[in-house]
């Protein structure tokens, strides 16, 4: 395998990586850092969006009916065992073809458990007295769901979005291994060309983006929500 060939070791890899990061040529065109960052973010954004489209209605209805608790636990446990690389490769090998569309679908599937579990727990943990009171006031089932349970579940739904976004942005890197785009390209091309400085520079950029997502405004989105929310369900 070409990736596994032995790379000779230049002594100044770190210095060369800094040179790579400062080379204007690496910021131009469709293989440049800005375009790859943009590609990385739009792949991640669409993936989380499509995942939410599936997971949120399902979680809200299941949570409202009080069913499927076991189902959501099984989904999140089994999903941990599925390697994202396998998911990405399988979708890249279908008729969809490799590229960003296959990546978005694979990552969306990957993002569903975090969104599903959090939203489900959010609805389930709404104070039963509050739901009882709403019913007593003559609210229909759907009104209870949309006007009582949903608003009260918002902090946990937001936590699910946060977890899913952080995970997807980190994992989107792997798409480059199977012909997808995004910042992972810099690393995989570096391994392919046995270019250590580029590998290191790519690692730095990807780590920076992931850390920015986890500890930046997206990672702390719940700070802007009303206080007193329950702890988010953890799905590492």
């Amino acid at each position: 395998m070409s990736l596994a060939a032995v790379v000779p070791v230049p002594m100044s890899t770190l210095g060369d990586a800094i040179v790579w990061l400062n080379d204007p040529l690496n910021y131009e065109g469709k293989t440049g850092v800005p375009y790859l960052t943009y590609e990385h973010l739009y792949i991640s954004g669409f993936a989380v969006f499509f995942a939410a489209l599936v997971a949120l209605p399902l979680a809200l209805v299941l949570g409202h009916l009080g069913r499927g608790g076991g189902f959501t636990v099984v989904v999140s446990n089994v999903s941990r065992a599925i390697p994202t690389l396998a998911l990405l490769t399988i979708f890249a090998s279908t008729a969809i073809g490799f590229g960003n569309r296959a990546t978005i679908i694979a990552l969306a599937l990957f993002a569903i458990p975090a969104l599903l579990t959090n939203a489900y727990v959010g609805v389930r943990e709404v104070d039963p007295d509050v739901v009882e009171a709403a019913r007593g006031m003559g609210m229909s089932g759907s009104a209870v769901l949309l006007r009582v349970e949903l608003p009260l579940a918002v902090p946990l739904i937001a936590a699910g979005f946060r977890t899913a976004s952080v995970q997807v942005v980190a994992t989107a890197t792997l798409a480059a291994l199977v012909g997808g785009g995004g910042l992972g390209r810099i690393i995989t091309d570096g391994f392919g060309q046995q270019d250590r400085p580029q590998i290191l520079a790519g690692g730095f950029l990807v780590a920076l983006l992931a850390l920015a997502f986890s500890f930046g405004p997206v990672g702390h989105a719940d700070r802007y929500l009303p206080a007193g929310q329950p702890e988010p369900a953890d799905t590492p």
Partner: protein
Amino acid sequence: MLAAGEAANPWFSWEYVQDNRGDLEQALVDHVLLTVETVLVAMLIAFPLAVLSYRYRWLAGPVLGVTGVLYTIPSLALFAFIAPMDAFGLTRRTVLFGLVIYALLVLVRNTLTGLQGVPPDVREAAAGMGYGRTRMLWQVEVPVALPSIMAGVRVATVSTVALVTVGVVVGYGGLGGLILRGFQNNTYKAEIMTASLLTVALGLAFDVLLAGATRLMTPWARRRS
């Protein structure tokens, strides 16, 4: 629908499994060994870190903070940091080192949570019976924390099984090697699917095995429920 002259390329093929038994077994063994070594080494590091963070409270913040930041770095980027180092390069060590770093957070967090969850009266009773620090740790605190510690080991093991596949980027990905080989080999679907399913099955098998081990190690928890 097959185009004229195009060879059949099914997702599931028993013939593939029979023809490639050797490769599959080799990849599976590599995968299992990498996983077991990772979790063992990670536990050897995580356990003392957790005990220290438990005894010296001020350590808990920094330890969880650092392992948390390391956990946030995407796997491919982590390998990209380790591989260019002279001592590592494109070796199995690189994969092992990266995977150990990943497993740390879950193991430290769960061990610490377990130790912190030991009821104070249990500790006082043991102290009253003359248990010293070390005996208290091994005979009282660790057994009580065991369900939480083992839950961490389960999550770390299952996640490691999935993550080993990314090691393919430095040439040591266990079943991930077959997944990518299948992809590069004109998308050999049977190879991709077989290796993927084996990886998932391996993760679930480890999970069930560890769940069983936890039950055996904590007979008192069974009686209570």
